[in-house]
């Protein structure tokens, strides 16, 4: 295919995808059978809209029992009254200790959307940027080179949530539009995997345009600065990981040593915590509480919650080996956090204070390489490579340095593991060890470990 044909092919592909979303589920929709769930009997729908079925990832007895627990609902009903009052006098509570205290206790789920929207001051932005969202969305439909990836990801974002369950339904359309529009609005990020779950979470509580502006605030507002997480090379991720190491060194040195010894370096387990503020790594209802305080207080919460999480589970973690540590952090904690939500939130607040006292609560303002360099919302026609989705064979300078840093960290972690663990324990860097004295034939039982890390 020549260049022109390639561009045409990409344009046709994009147009076909866009047409499907714009058509939605109305008559005449063409939906591949595998893309749509067939008739199902939902086992349980929890109060947040997740479908609980033994086959799906979110299945948890704990969450179902919460759905049925009348106490949770009762307490929340009492809180709703207070919050309604507070929302009426929002200007007088902004920045107050009272607001902070109440947010730590949890925003009532029925008011969460309203409160988030207040905290992020969405109505002001929406007014100031009147029409901008629609403009960006329309541009995305015509131009966004990220449409293909966005489509792939919308098709697999929270499909076990009732709102995103059916292919091309209203919320899937909105998710597609928000991500597309954002990819045109912020050309330095475009679309980065990880953003779809964030946008979906926002869409569970906000309408389409609000969700777009909320995403925009999270990315570019000084309080959150997610820009540096999602741009190529992920400079902010690396900086946060270094800061996390410092905190571990100071507050949890024994655990750090244990993790190092097992080759579990920070780069491996913190990525999703930082990129998505703990989405899918802790139970959803606790995620919401963390998000409540994250939106109120900003990026300090990422640092503090990472510390909090490890602190709360340090004893357990100390008893585990590499596989189990990763299994525990990746999978187990989401299903069963082991610690009560209120206790976890209180502990988060203490962690924040501890870090503050030691001047470790804030990794510092973003250096220039983490900040947006181009104005938002200005249309620029994508380059040929971008249009046809051709990958550059070379890394950019930023990516190269990220890559080098990753390699260095990895090697340092391996070296640490090697230094830490005595030979008889056996570790990934060791050579084969054998437990029996028979050297003439292969011993009955030994472990082959790989060399070269």
């Amino acid at each position: 295919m020549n260049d022109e044909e390639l561009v045409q092919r990409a344009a046709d592909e994009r147009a076909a995808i866009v047409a499907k979303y714009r058509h939605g589920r109305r008559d005449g929709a063409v939906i591949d059978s595998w893309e749509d769930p067939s008739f199902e009997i939902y086992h349980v729908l929890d109060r947040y809209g997740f479908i609980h079925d033994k086959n799906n990832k979110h299945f948890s007895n704990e969450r179902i029992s919460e759905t049925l627990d009348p106490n949770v609902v009762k307490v929340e009903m009492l809180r709703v009254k207070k919050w309604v009052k507070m929302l009426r006098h929002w200007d007088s509570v902004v920045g107050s200790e009272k607001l902070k205290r109440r947010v730590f206790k949890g925003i009532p789920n029925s008011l969460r959307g309203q409160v988030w929207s207040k905290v992020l001051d969405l109505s002001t932005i929406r007014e100031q940027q009147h029409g901008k969202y629609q403009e960006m969305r329309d541009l995305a439909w015509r131009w966004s080179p990220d449409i293909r990836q966005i489509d792939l990801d919308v098709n697999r974002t929270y499909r076990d949530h009732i709102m995103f369950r059916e292919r091309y339904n209203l919320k899937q359309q909105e998710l597609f539009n928000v991500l597309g529009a954002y990819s045109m609005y912020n050309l330095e990020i475009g679309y980065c995997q990880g953003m779809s779950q964030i946008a979906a979470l926002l869409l569970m509580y906000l309408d389409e345009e609000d969700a777009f502006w909320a995403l925009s605030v999270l990315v570019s507002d000084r309080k959150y600065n997610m820009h540096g997480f999602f741009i190529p090379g992920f400079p902010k991720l690396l900086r946060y990981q270094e800061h996390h190491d410092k905190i571990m060194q100071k507050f949890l040195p024994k655990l750090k040593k244990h993790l190092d010894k097992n080759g579990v370096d920070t780069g491996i387990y913190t990525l999703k915590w930082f990129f998505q503020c703990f989405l899918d790594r802790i139970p959803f209802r606790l995620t919401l509480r963390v998000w409540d305080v994250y939106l109120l207080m900003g990026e300090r919460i990422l640092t503090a919650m990472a510390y909090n999480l490890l602190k709360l589970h340090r004893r357990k973690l100390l008893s585990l080996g590499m596989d189990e540590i990763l299994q525990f952090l990746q999978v187990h904690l989401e299903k069963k956090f082991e610690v009560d939500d209120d206790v976890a939130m209180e502990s988060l607040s203490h962690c924040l204070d501890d870090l503050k006292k030691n001047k470790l609560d804030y990794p510092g303002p973003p250096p220039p390489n983490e900040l947006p360099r181009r104005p938002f919302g200005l249309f620029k026609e994508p380059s040929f490579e971008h249009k046809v989705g051709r990958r550059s064979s070379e890394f950019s300078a930023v990516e190269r340095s990220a890559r080098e840093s990753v390699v260095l960290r990895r090697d340092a972690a391996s070296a640490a593991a090697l230094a830490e663990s005595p030979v008889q324990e056996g570790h990934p860097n060791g050579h084969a060890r054998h437990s029996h004295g028979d050297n003439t034939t292969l011993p009955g039982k030994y472990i082959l470990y790989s060399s070269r890390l």
Partner: protein
Amino acid sequence: MANRGGPGGRPNGTAQQQQGGGGGGRICQFKLVLLGESAVGKSSLVLRFVKGQFHEYQESTIGAAFLTQTLCLEDTTVKFEIWDTAGQERYHSLAPMYYRGAQAAIVVYDVTNQDTFGRAKTWVKELQRHASPNIVIALAGNKADLSNKRNVELDEAKAYAEENGLLFMETSAKTAVNVNEIFQEIGESIVGLFVLVVGIQICRSEQSRLNYVSKIVYSLWYRK
């Protein structure tokens, strides 16, 4: 860490694989990484291999995920430490974190999408240049159940794999075709390699070393 090599399957291992876990002589542990374009089915292959499940809407992997599974090969129990990675190009710069020190890689493409095959070739090149020199690389043409929508010919992929010394299979995480098989083949080829190398290392006398090597060569010869 000493317990990680213990016999027996993982709690989530399939029964069939657990059975053999306790028996037999050696236990080998290998690091394996999955690479390939977004949405070709990397996570699905792992899910099928590790839990015997398939999810139509397998979530996109952010960063990477870690899983383990044990397989039994004759008298060797192989434990795979599997790193499943994110497919989007932007995450490419993190890939060395996962493939460094890996003894095996599965590079996955989607048989219905030619672009993903091109991408797989790029991954193979990168591994040949930057991964461990004797890494075992397998190429998996996934979504083989959709062969009516095929865009990458079997022969084309086969020829490419042969040319580059890769193991190759067309797989389907959905129908489970060739999923265990590809892991098994990888296991066998690494075990073959490592038993030889390590065996030589631990034989003290010249004579036992010689005996050992001839034994291995003999058994390899007859397996073929």
